[in-house]
């Protein structure tokens, strides 16, 4: 590495922004160019459905780093800029306006985008998604006391938005295609808990409900029409039905992709000069012996550390256990691990107390994942137990008189 070695980062989200900061912190002396399609420097997305939506967070607190950080650290910012193509042989990227930038190392941090529904009315005014700060501002402007919000999709985005919308006095209906909320990402016990809690908070929930169309009046959404013929009247419809990795740029350049850009544990793609980090990647999971795509801030940070370490010649960071969090009402949900190959579920604590944890064990008694609601000790200990692969005795795990520390 010398002062003329060039790193180009495509994508100025949590992953790209963190990679910049870590590269400089680890002593990278070469040039860094950060290209982002949004008009603003990197910011944190998790608060968009929570504190930001409720008006409890400032723009400064949303920013990943203060605006002056990039100038102070000699980072060339190319915001509101889209990359059209990668030329791997020539080691250049071509921007949408035709400009060509050369790189020695390219980092793809292109993130994911909200999945679109192909149904009539999807382009009506008042049909929103929640991925960017601009999306959040539109939703925030619409959420007034009494506003009727139809949320299509009972995943984390939908549930967090529902909680924030209730705090703002809006009327909320969640419409979910599957038989339960969080169907793809949580256990049945956790789904049942969140279903009941949201209903207690005044949220109407429609399960097994297919959306046939969005209906409008004067070009603005006025109802969600279900496949069974019923209409859910609304002033705004939020669509939160999952995300798709932005891997097209990489796959068009012939980089190996599998529903995401395939990387190794140093975040390197099938091209040794090109790395990929964050939501856009399909990555090895050290603790699970398989590859998977993760959409989370901890994953973005872990991979940002991997690439910054790889490029500055540092030892690669320790393998993290994947983890996630979600804040809804006064509930703090923390999940560690992934529920692959699980054989048994152990409940610790009483869900009716709003503080409990669901542990998922493999057949050999080793912990694979834990879902903890207002149960930080269970989450923290669970994360350690997943990594240590220590077989657990079910009775002791379920016994609240045995402290989590004693199970480590």
């Amino acid at each position, binding site marked *: 590495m010398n002062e003329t070695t060039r790193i180009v980062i495509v994508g100025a989200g949590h992953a790209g922004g963190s990679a910049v900061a870590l590269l400089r912190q680890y002593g990278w002396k070469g040039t860094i160019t950060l290209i982002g399609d949004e008009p603003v420097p990197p910011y944190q997305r998790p608060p968009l459905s929570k504190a930001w939506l409720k008006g409890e967070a400032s723009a400064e607190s949303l920013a990943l780093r203060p605006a002056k950080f990039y100038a102070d650290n000699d980072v060339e910012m190319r915001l509101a800029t889209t990359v059209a193509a990668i030329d791997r042989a020539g080691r250049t990227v071509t921007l949408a306006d035709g400009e060509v930038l050369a790189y020695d190392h390219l980092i793809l941090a292109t993130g994911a985008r909200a999945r679109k529904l192909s149904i009539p009315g999807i382009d009506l005014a008042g049909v929103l998604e929640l991925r960017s700060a601009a999306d959040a501002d539109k939703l925030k402007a619409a959420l007034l006391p009494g506003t009727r919000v139809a949320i299509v999709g009972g995943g984390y985005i939908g549930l967090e938005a529902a909680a924030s919308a209730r705090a703002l006095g809006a009327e909320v209906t969640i419409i979910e295609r599957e038989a339960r909320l969080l169907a793809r990402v949580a256990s049945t016990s956790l789904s049942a808990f969140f279903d009941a809690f949201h209903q207690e908070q005044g949220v109407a929930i429609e399960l097994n409900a297919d959306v046939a169309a969005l209906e409008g009046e004067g070009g603005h959404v006025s109802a969600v029409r279900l496949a069974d013929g019923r209409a859910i009247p609304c002033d705004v419809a939020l669509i939160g039905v999952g995300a798709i990795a932005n891997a097209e740029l990489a796959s068009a350049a012939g980089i190996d992709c599998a529903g995401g850009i395939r990387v190794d544990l140093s975040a390197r793609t099938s091209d040794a000069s090109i790395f990929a980090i964050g939501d856009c990647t399909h990555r090895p999971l050290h603790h699970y012996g398989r590859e998977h795509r993760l959409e989370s801030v901890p994953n973005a*940070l872990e991979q940002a550390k991997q690439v910054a370490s790889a490029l500055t010649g540092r030892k690669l960071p320790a393998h993290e256990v994947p983890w996630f969090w979600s*804040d809804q009402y006064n509930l*703090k949900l923390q999940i560690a691990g992934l529920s692959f190959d699980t054989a048994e579920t152990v409940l610790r604590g009483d869900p009716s107390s709003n503080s409990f944890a669901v542990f998922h064990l493999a057949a050999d008694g080793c912990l694979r994942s834990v879902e903890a609601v207002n149960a930080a000790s269970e989450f*923290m200990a669970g994360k350690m137990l997943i990594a240590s692969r220590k077989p657990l005795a079910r009775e002791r795990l379920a016994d609240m008189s045995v402290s989590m*520390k004693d199970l480590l």
Partner: protein
Amino acid sequence: MPKITYIEHDGTEHPMEVPVGLTVMQGAVDNSVPGIDADCGGACACATCHVYVDPEWLGKTGTPNEQEASMLSFAAVTESNSRLSCQIEVTSELDGLIVRMPEGQH
């Protein structure tokens, strides 16, 4: 603006001016002070902004709530003056605060 001194595990001192209303964690991140990772951005969900509050300041920084205390109890090398710095809001009363960082956050 209150002055907060962040001291790395190796003894390197980082005296910083941090605006009232931010957290002690944000003051470190915004000024690129190494040693505070703050992976979750201040949601009290990750325990990677662990600091040791200088004992003389413990009366003014308050005490951890239940969530923070539980998170802290599993962080590496905790002491009685351990706190998660995302949970300490900067006030004018904290002008002069000294916090020390552990060897690592992960």
